[in-house]
């Protein structure tokens, strides 16, 4: 059992990280008071933008194309999310509809652009990140093989972003103001701070982080843009709710989803897991979310003004 766990842990982490980033993006947006159901679409935009960038530049830049692709994915996600920000902040549109529109637009637009630019709806990059054991750290008993072996460098970048976001949101006055925009925007406005600017920041961060999530999918486990992120964006929203809109909560929730999905995927290969039908693991994240919603909906920690135009 221990060996099984050690062997699947790195893959579960790799699968978790894009979800964690997207969920963190959702946290920024919702904490600032804008519901963002467009995370799936924003991920897709980042996924696509990084794929096309890396494909065009990998012949000349080689391995350096990967970080550039990541950055382009982040930028594309942020820019695309401004559509949602404009609709929901300036035009005071229904944020649920605007987010849904983002999803539909992204799904169609990315495939269309992929066809136009590269001639195929599937954009394949030659080489993603090669997994490495981290020197020294991977030799530590127990946590070494679990966390520091077979890891992608993006994992550590993303975890750093997660940590910095926590500090930004909970330890700085800027973070306090951002969160206040999601709870009681008129109080923030009366203190002389622009709620619109804060919300723009929140939505743009959600776009950037979802774009990062999409780009990480590409350069870690998929290696090909194929026009879908397979519902990971929606799963990230579920993780956001399950994690009660808190950084530590979403870390736990996304990892929980990540490991459940990984076990579901590999259970067929591993005899000791074959006793449980894979369908059980596959529905696990969704059933858990439903249960969590039922249990926590009474004292839900959702930002009070999330979804309300100001």
């Amino acid at each position, binding site marked *: 059992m221990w060996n099984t766990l050690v062997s699947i842990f790195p893959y579960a982490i790799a699968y978790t990280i894009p979800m964690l980033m997207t969920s963190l993006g959702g946290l920024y947006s919702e904490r600032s008071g804008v519901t963002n159901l467009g995370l799936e679409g924003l991920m897709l935009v980042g996924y696509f933008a990084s794929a096309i960038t890396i494909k065009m530049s990998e012949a000349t830049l080689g391995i350096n194309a990967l970080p550039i692709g990541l950055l382009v994915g982040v930028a594309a996600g942020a820019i695309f999310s401004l559509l949602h920000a404009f609709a929901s902040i300036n035009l005071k549109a229904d944020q649920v509809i605007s987010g849904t529109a983002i999803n539909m637009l992204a799904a169609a637009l990315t495939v269309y652009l992929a066809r136009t630019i590269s001639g195929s709806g599937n954009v394949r990059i030659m080489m993603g990140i090669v997994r490495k054991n981290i020197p020294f750290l991977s030799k530590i008993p127990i946590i070494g093989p679990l966390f520091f072996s077979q890891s992608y460098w993006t994992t550590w970048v993303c975890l750093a972003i997660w940590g910095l976001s926590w500090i930004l949101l909970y330890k700085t006055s800027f973070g306090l103001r951002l969160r206040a925009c999601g709870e009681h925007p008129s109080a923030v406005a009366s203190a002389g701070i622009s709620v619109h600017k804060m919300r723009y920041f929140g939505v743009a961060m959600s776009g950037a982080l979802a774009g990062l999530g999409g780009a990480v999918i590409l350069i870690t486990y998929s290696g090909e843009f194929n026009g879908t992120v397979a519902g990971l964006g929606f799963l990230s929203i579920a993780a956001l709710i399950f994690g009660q809109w808190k950084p530590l909560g979403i870390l736990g929730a996304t990892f929980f989803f990540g490991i459940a999905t990984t076990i579901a*995927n590999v259970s067929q290969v591993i005899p000791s897991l074959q006793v449980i039908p894979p369908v059980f693991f596959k529905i696990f994240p969704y059933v858990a979310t439903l249960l969590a919603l039922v249990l926590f909906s009474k004292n839900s920690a959702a930002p009070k003004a999330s979804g309300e135009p100001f």
Partner: protein
Amino acid sequence: MKKLAVVLCIFLMLGSFAFAQGSEEGKAKKSNLRVGMVTDAGTIDDKSFNQGTWEGILKASKDYALDAKYLKPAGTTEADYLKEIGNLVDAGYNFIVCPGFKFETALFEAQDKYPNVKFVILDGEPHSADYSEYRIEPNVVAVYYAEHESGFLAGLAAALQIKEGDFGFVGGMEIPAVQKFNWGFQQGIAYANENYGTKIMMKQENNLYQGSFDNISAGQQIAASMYDRGVDVIFAAAGGVGVGVINEAKNRASSGQNVWVIGVDVDQYPEGVLPSGKSIILTSAMKYLDRASYDMIVAELNGSFPAGEVLTFTAANKGVGIPAENPNLDKAVTDEVSKVSAMIASGELKVRASGDGLFK
């Protein structure tokens, strides 16, 4: 607000002009045959079924100056397929190619509904939804492939090349076309072990069907687990799931591990290429998809459409096999494989299309 509406209206009009012109391309036609295709699950450029079939149609449309068009249904239900078939017929397409067994029930209805339209179905034949009635009308031809022969040859080639090791199989959905690849593959390995003294192992848990054709991450994680458990070669007959398998193999190969993938349907060698120029695709179990659509169109043009027949493309009529070029295989191996291929073609060697005594 009014101004905005006016501007939007202008855009809309301009847009519709732009699209209206799109349908008038390619005027010179020799024949009144218009070839349509409805795609199966996945995109037109899936590097597999849809793409292979479409390439055959495109080739025919170029060679004979025909009009060709494909439609992608919104889903993969019978109703979705029938709707797009209907759309093609309404638009005047009188020769429709349907790649995939999922079209079986849709064609069962369409063959009666549109008696003047010719249909080609690949990998299946029309039957009613509850399998109670199989009926093929004279306007339909059904094409099967002998996937087991293709899988056999790929398994044999890989076994002869690797000589000693552990093999795995990752399938997409557990459907006949994929199962036959698997069964043939296992027979090919067994044949190599018996007749050439290779020592290839295959464990039961390394032989599985993922259950979809589009889950890249599952493909990657399954492949990673298999390679972790000592598998050297994975035969991935799984569409997008195979993309994940190939990606994982590339990752491992570039950190120095000796792992391989056997491709499926088309020659996947270019997809496994690493920055070093080498490819992790050992060989591919091919179905010459473009040949079926091309041959059927040509047959129709020559007036020899095999009306109402069920055809099988096999090694004997060069419908399946491994690629002509295999840079990762030794010359001695490919020579041996073509010998065995000739034996299959002549009927001297039989590959079973059933899973008796095999895994899954």
